[in-house]
């Protein structure tokens, strides 16, 4: 099985199926991330398509010092930011009846999904940092490079976000009227 970078080289040498393979590998992962950030599913799918098209268009500019996934996520973040600049997310949510697309995409579960809690409690940058670190398994340095932040900022944000989420989940797990654990 070829690595992502080998597929990029194959694509640069003229193999179009190589890029289709890359799309196949990343479409679900990237859509999952975009669904967590976009205003609705249609926006997330549009951003996904634009991200892949931009990656294909600028493939010659791909720097091999990056991992392909890091580069692709950076493109996706820019695409999403451009999309949200043109149409504010609040407007889209209002048109969609206020339904959170992430909520709509989560399969029924006995307990609350931690990413729904994260979306409610964390800001966009902290949410994205957490997603890249714990879902995409990026290193702290890769997260920092993708978000164009410092490593220190990333470490601090990850630490605080984890603490916030842990506290929020502990609060929700408590039975009504039960004792408040102030140690968390």
């Amino acid at each position, binding site marked *: 099985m070829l690595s992502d970078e080998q597929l990029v080289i194959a694509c640069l040498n003229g193999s179009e199926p190589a890029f289709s393979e890359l799309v196949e590998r990343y479409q679900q992962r990237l859509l999952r991330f975009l669904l967590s950030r976009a205003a609705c599913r249609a926006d997330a799918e549009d951003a*996904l*398509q634009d991200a892949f*098209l931009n990656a*294909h268009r*600028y493939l010659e500019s791909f720097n091999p010092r990056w991992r392909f996934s890091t580069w692709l996520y950076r493109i996706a973040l820019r695409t999403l930011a451009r999309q949200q600049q043109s149409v504010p997310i609040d407007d889209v949510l209002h048109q969609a009846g206020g339904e959170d697309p992430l909520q709509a995409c*989560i*399969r029924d579960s006995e307990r609350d999904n*931690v990413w729904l809690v994260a979306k409610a409690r964390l800001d966009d940058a902290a949410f994205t940092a957490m997603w890249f670190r714990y879902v995409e398994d990026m290193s702290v340095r890769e997260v920092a490079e993708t978000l164009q932040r410092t490593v220190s900022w990333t470490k601090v944000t990850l630490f605080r976000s984890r603490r916030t989420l842990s506290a929020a989940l502990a609060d929700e797990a408590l039975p009504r009227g039960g004792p408040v654990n102030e140690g968390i």
Partner: protein
Amino acid sequence: MKEFDRRLKNDALTIDAEVSAEWRARMDASLRATKRLPAVAPQKRAAGRLWLASSLTGVASALVIIAVMNWNRHEEPPAPEVAALPRTVPEHVATSPAASFLDIRTAEFTEPLEEELQHLQSDLEKARRNMRRDLEFAF
């Protein structure tokens, strides 16, 4: 902590992110229509040119500042030549045969004035003393 990390990952996987066949067909069609752009290398060359231009500007401005400072600098007057002090001992005395046993020195013309000043000061002191004594007698 490990459990929390696992939960973060597992909960992400519960998000339904299956792409539809229509999306995939649209994607493939768009890819076929997209042309690849050349690498963005000119940015590096532009950055190099910018560096060169800023360096040249810096050097040129430094030269201008040096030139302006030199232009405004006042011409200092040349130092006067040190004139030889006139000899106070006349030539004919210095070269006379008696000069070998005479202790010839330059005349100190300020000495009488200093003596005169001291005399005046002592006179003034005396006058002050006399006046104080007279005042004591009067009252």
